[in-house]
């Protein structure tokens, strides 16, 4: 590349695409030596390339993803993609007809019902009796409608069962789990910090927040000086804030993390401010937000911090 054409982005292009610079390209070479930004960007790119692209089990992973994607597409109606316009037009063309048929049917049904009621009352039978006769069939209809043709009731749960599930009281903790760390100890035994961390993370991902909390606490109690215990403070804090509604507990975790120091200091500061907000301690929360703003003025949280500092009295 001639020096007259030289642009730092072209230099990055060359290196990213695997074309080495020739010895005659003095200016780009010099630029690369002096420009920290370009060198940093190239370092990052090289790091991305250093990651393995193919892992064992990729074949199965791809197959599973394809299986799920095709299922998702068939449920979402991939056939509509190319033909969406056509289908819409077709739908529009038929909709007045369908509407007409619907109105006629409703009118006929209303007329029939009127005739029946008139006939029943003219015979001297009480209307309540007519209601009693009609009632079972009306009640039975939705049940029949939701029943699976094969008689498999599991595919269509009854309204009652859904209501029961919704109204079910929260599960009582198991006796062994009521004590702090009881269940966790039983589950985790004498595990290493890494194993405890992995177990707690698996529980968290599975949605078992309270058990994850117990295992994280066990990790902190048994291996307080391990790096896993340090990192667990943020995971635990977040679980306490979001799943067990315990901002006080979360605040203690954020403060402990900040005291010991770590790469996620910024996140811990924001967490601390959010926990103080949640605890209804506005003056302290404002102080924490100010700290975020002072220490990380250009961060992604700065805008939120500024709003908090400015909006509160």
């Amino acid at each position, binding site marked *: 590349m001639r020096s007259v054409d030289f642009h730092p982005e072209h230099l*990055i292009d060359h290196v990213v695409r695997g074309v080495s610079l020739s010895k005659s390209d003095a200016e780009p070479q010099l630029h690369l030596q002096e420009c920290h*930004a370009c060198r940093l960007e190239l370092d990052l790119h*090289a*790091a*991305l390339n250093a*990651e393995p692209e193919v892992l064992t089990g990729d074949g199965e992973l791809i197959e599973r993803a394809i299986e799920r994607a095709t299922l998702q597409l068939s449920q*979402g109606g991939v056939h509509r993609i190319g033909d969406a316009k056509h289908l819409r037009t077709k739908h529009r063309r038929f909709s007045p007809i369908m509407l007409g048929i619907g109105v006629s049917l409703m009118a006929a049904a209303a007329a029939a019902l009127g005739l029946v009621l008139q006939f029943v009352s003219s015979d001297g039978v009480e209307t309540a009796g007519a209601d009693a006769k009609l009632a079972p069939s009306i009640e039975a209809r939705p049940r029949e409608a939701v029943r699976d043709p094969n008689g498999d009731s599991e595919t269509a749960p009854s309204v009652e069962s859904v209501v029961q599930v919704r109204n079910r009281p929260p599960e009582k903790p198991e006796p062994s789990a009521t004590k702090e760390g009881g269940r966790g100890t039983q589950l985790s035994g004498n595990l290493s910090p890494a194993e405890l961390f992995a177990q707690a993370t698996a529980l968290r991902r599975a949605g078992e927040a309270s058990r994850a909390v117990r295992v994280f606490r066990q990790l902190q109690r048994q291996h307080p000086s391990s790096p896993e215990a340090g990192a667990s403070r943020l995971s635990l804090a977040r679980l306490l804030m979001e799943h067990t509604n315990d901002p006080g507990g979360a605040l203690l975790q954020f403060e402990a993390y900040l005291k010991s120091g770590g790469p996620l200091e910024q996140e811990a500061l924001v967490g601390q401010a959010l926990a103080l907000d949640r605890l209804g301690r506005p003056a302290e929360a404002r102080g924490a937000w100010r700290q975020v703003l002072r220490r990380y003025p250009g961060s992604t949280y700065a805008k939120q911090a500024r709003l908090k500092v400015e909006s509160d009295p």
Partner: protein
Amino acid sequence: MTEPELSFGGGVRHPHALPLQVLGQQNALVPPTQLVATTSANVLSEVMTSELLVQRARSGESQAIRQLLTQLGPGVLRTVRRTLGAQHPDVEDMMQEALVAVIKALPSFRGQCRIEHFAQRIALFRVLEERKRQRASKRAHGESAMDPDQIASRVMHPGDTLDSRRQELLRELFTTLPPAQSEAFALRHVLDYSVEMIADATATPANTVRSRLRLAKQALIARIGQSAYWRELSPEDS
């Protein structure tokens, strides 16, 4: 999108060019001229097969959709993995989302580039979009954007080398940069696109792309300056 032509006689090889066996280079005894003819025929046949497959998939033929996804799967997985990280727990879910997005985007495929490149771009944009959506959703709910999976990944895969931190920083930028910068930056680093290729892919003048990449680099430097953890990555310190 205009892409560099495949060069059989040396020169610049497109990073997403056909694998060597497709180019016929496994047959070392074939004279160069004959090799060019054979390989051109192979490439042509492959392109035609792909086009046919795309057409059938576009019309909703389920067997063609499956066949096309099988063909595109490895490239899409590579893209998802480079964007999220090899050990990220969402790789499989995002792979599924990306494949669905590719099929849904087929009507917009005009055949001006290879279907593999199109699919990788769609996959990249879908993953970026989802990551940004997740981040925005967390912030809208007043949560910290701190990702517990990221913390877990750091602890459970303790290869806390400079390389792993560099990967982490790059991926963080993909989700925190403004959309246009993030798109250009990710196309460059995930798919190895040049300025001109990004300009074509995003229908943007090359100078605008350069400007976006420069701004992304400025954001990178600013991010480095914000914490001691990242500052260790600075070339000044190494």
